[in-house]
C-alpha cells in the first residue's frame, strides 16, 4: 500500500529528484516495460499522487518501492496495427470490376486476331 512508502516532503521537482537515480530502470524492470522512456516515466511520476511529494528511493524497502511503482499511471504500450478501411457498399463499377476482368480474360483467346493489316501489304 502506498502509505507504507517512505515519503520525504521535499518540494523539488520530480525530474530533478529521479533523473539520475536507478528508480527509472527499476520501474521498467518491475513493470516489464523496457519501452518506457525516461521522459514518459518522469511524467508518470509527476502525475502520481505519492510522487508529487517525492519518494526516498534510497531508504525505502524494496517491497514498498515495488508497491509504489505499481501505482504509477504509465501509458499503454504503443504498438499500433494497420486497420484498412473496407468499402462495404462500393459503386457498381468497382463491384463488377472482377467480373469484367474475368470476361475480358475469357474473351482474349476466343477473339480473332484483330491486328490491322499494314497498308502496303493490303495493296499488294
Amino acid at each position: 500500500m502506498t502509505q507504507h512508502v517512505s515519503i520525504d516532503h521535499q518540494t523539488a521537482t520530480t525530474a530533478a529528484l529521479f533523473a539520475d537515480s536507478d528508480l527509472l530502470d527499476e520501474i521498467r524492470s518491475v513493470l516489464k516495460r523496457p519501452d518506457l522512456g525516461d521522459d514518459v516515466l518522469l511524467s508518470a511520476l509527476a502525475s502520481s499522487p505519492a510522487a508529487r511529494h517525492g519518494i526516498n528511493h534510497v531508504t525505502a524497502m524494496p517491497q514498498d518501492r515495488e508497491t509504489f511503482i505499481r501505482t504509477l499511471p504509465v501509458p499503454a504500450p504503443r504498438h499500433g496495427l494497420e486497420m484498412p478501411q473496407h468499402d462495404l457498399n462500393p459503386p457498381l463499377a468497382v463491384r463488377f470490376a472482377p467480373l469484367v476482368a474475368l470476361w475480358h480474360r475469357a474473351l482474349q483467346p476466343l477473339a480473332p486476331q484483330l491486328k490491322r493489316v499494314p497498308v502496303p501489304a493490303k495493296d499488294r
Partner: protein
Amino acid sequence: MKKAGPEAWSTAFRRLAMAVIALCLTTGASYMFAIVVQSDGFDWLDIIRIALMAVASFWLAWGGCIALFGILFPPEERSTGVNLPEGRTAILLPIYNEATGPVFARLEAIMKSVAALPAADRFDFFVLSDTTKDDVGEAEQRAYQQLLVRQNAGGRLFYRRREQNIGRKAGNIADFLTTSGGAYEYMLVLDADSLMDGKTILEMVRRMEADPRLGLLQSLPQIIGLSTLFGRLLQFATGLYGPYFARGLAAVQGEEGTFWGHNALIRTRAFAAACGMAPLTGKPPFGGHILSHDTVEAALLARDGWKVHLDPDLTGSYEEAPANMVDYAKRDRRWCQGNLQHSRILAAPRFRFWSRISILQGVFAYLASPIWCVFLLASLAAPLVAPPPVYFDGHSPFPVFPHPETTTALALLFGLVALLILPKLLLVARALLGGNSADFGGPVRLLISFLLEILLTSILAPIHMMFHCRSVFQVLTGADSGWPTADRDDGSLPISAAFSATWWMSIAGAGAIAFSHSYAPEMFYWLLPVALPLVVAPLLVWMTASVMLGKVTKKLGLFQVPTEAAPVEVAEDMRLALSQKAAA
C-alpha cells in the same frame, strides 16, 4: 479451395432443415389465411394481407425453429488445454458519459477475479473513454487513479480519453488497435454494464489458443441486477429461454456465428485486418459511420476465413439491461437505426451467405412490427372494401351461401399462438423434467412464473410493437421526437414519464376500437387483445417499472433465476466495491 469438413456439412444440413420447416409452416399458415379471407370474396387487399401474413408467420416460425434446434442440438465440445495462455490479452472497457461509480466498481470486480488466476500477468485492462462531458471525464480520471492504487495495477491498467468520439464505439476500439493493439494477441471487448468472471475469461483465451482459425468467440451474457417488475421479467425470460435460443443459433450459424458487441474475445490482428469499415456514402440514417457494427464485424471476420463462434456454454458472463419499457425502447431506437442501415450492406462483396442471412435477420427484427401493424390496419379496412356477397352467381337457380371458415380461422389463430408459446412450453417442460427447476424457484414457482411471463409478454407485446413502429418511422423520416428524461438509479419511472412516452398509443388504441365498433364490427373482438393494452399503455409501462412489484415477485419466489439461487461472486464483489466507494 478448402474442403468442407463434417462440421460444415452438419451445419448446412441444420440450416436447410430449419429453412424447410419454417417455409412449410409459413405455407400452411398462408394457405389457411387465404381460405379465411376469400370466404367473403377475393379482392386486392386480401392479396396484401396474405403477403403480410406470410412474412410475419415466417418470422414467427423462424424464431420457433431456433428454440427447437436449441433443444435438439446441444453445444459442441470445445477442445481446450489446461496450459497457461501464451498470448497477452487486453480487456477493453469502452465508456461514454456513463455513471462513473458503477463502471469502475464493475471493472474492479473483474480485475479482482482475473488477479486470482494463475496467469493474471497475461491480462491488461484498458478504460477507453469517449466521454464528452468534462465533469464526467474528471470523475473518470479520479476513479482511475483510485483504482490504480487500490489494485496496484500500474502497467496493467490504462485510461485514455478521446477528444472526439469519431465512429462511436467501433471508432473507439479502432483507436485502441491503431495505437496499442499490436502488443496483444487477443482483446476482450466489454460494455459499460458488462461483468465477467476471471475463469470464464481464461477459458475463452484457452479456446482461442486451441484453435488458430478462431477469430472471435462470443460468450452468452446473462442479465443480472434488475429489480423492477419488467427487469425481473426480462431476467427470467433470458435466464430460462436464452441459453436454448443461443444454442439454436449456434447450431445453425456454425462458423459464421454472431457477435453482440461485448463479452467476446477477439483475435486482434484478424480484427484489425478485416474489420475496418469505411463510412457509407450519404447522410445518416442510412449513410455515414456504420452503426450496430458488431454484426458487420462478425461478417467481415467470416469473409476473411476466420471462425466466429457463439459458445452458449460459456457462462460467467453477465450484463445489465434496461429496467423499464421506456429505456428498452430507447435502446431499441438506436439498434433499429443501425440494423436498418445494414440494408445497404446486405450485398457487400464477398460476404458469406449466412452472414447475409444474419444481417437480414437484424433488419427483420425491426421490420416485423410494422408488418404486423400494417396487417392489422389492412384487416380493419378489409370489410370496407369487401365485395357484397353474391347469392345467385348465374350458374345455379338456387342461392349459394358463403362457406363459413370459422374452424380454419380458429385453427390458424391457435397455430400462430402455438408458434409463440410452444417453444417456451417445451423449454419449461425440459427444465421441469431435467431437474434444474430448483434454479427457478422449484416446479410450482417455475410454472406460475412461466404462466405470468406468457400473460405479461402477451399484454406488453402491442406496446413493444408500437415502439418499434415509431422507431422505424423515425429512422425512415429522419425524425426524433425525443424521450422523457427519468434517469432514476433503480430503473423505476414516474407516471408522468410513462404517460409522456405512450400517450399516443392510448389515442391509437382508442381510435382503433372506435373505428372497429363503427365500421368493422366483425373485427371488434379480434382487435381487443391488441387495442386494450394500447389504451392503458401509460399505466402498464408505469406499473412494470415498479420496484415494489419487483420486490413482491422476489419475495414470492417468482421470476427467480439461477444467479439469484446461487449468488455470483463477481457481482457480489462489484456491489462491495460500489458500497466502499459510496462510503468513501
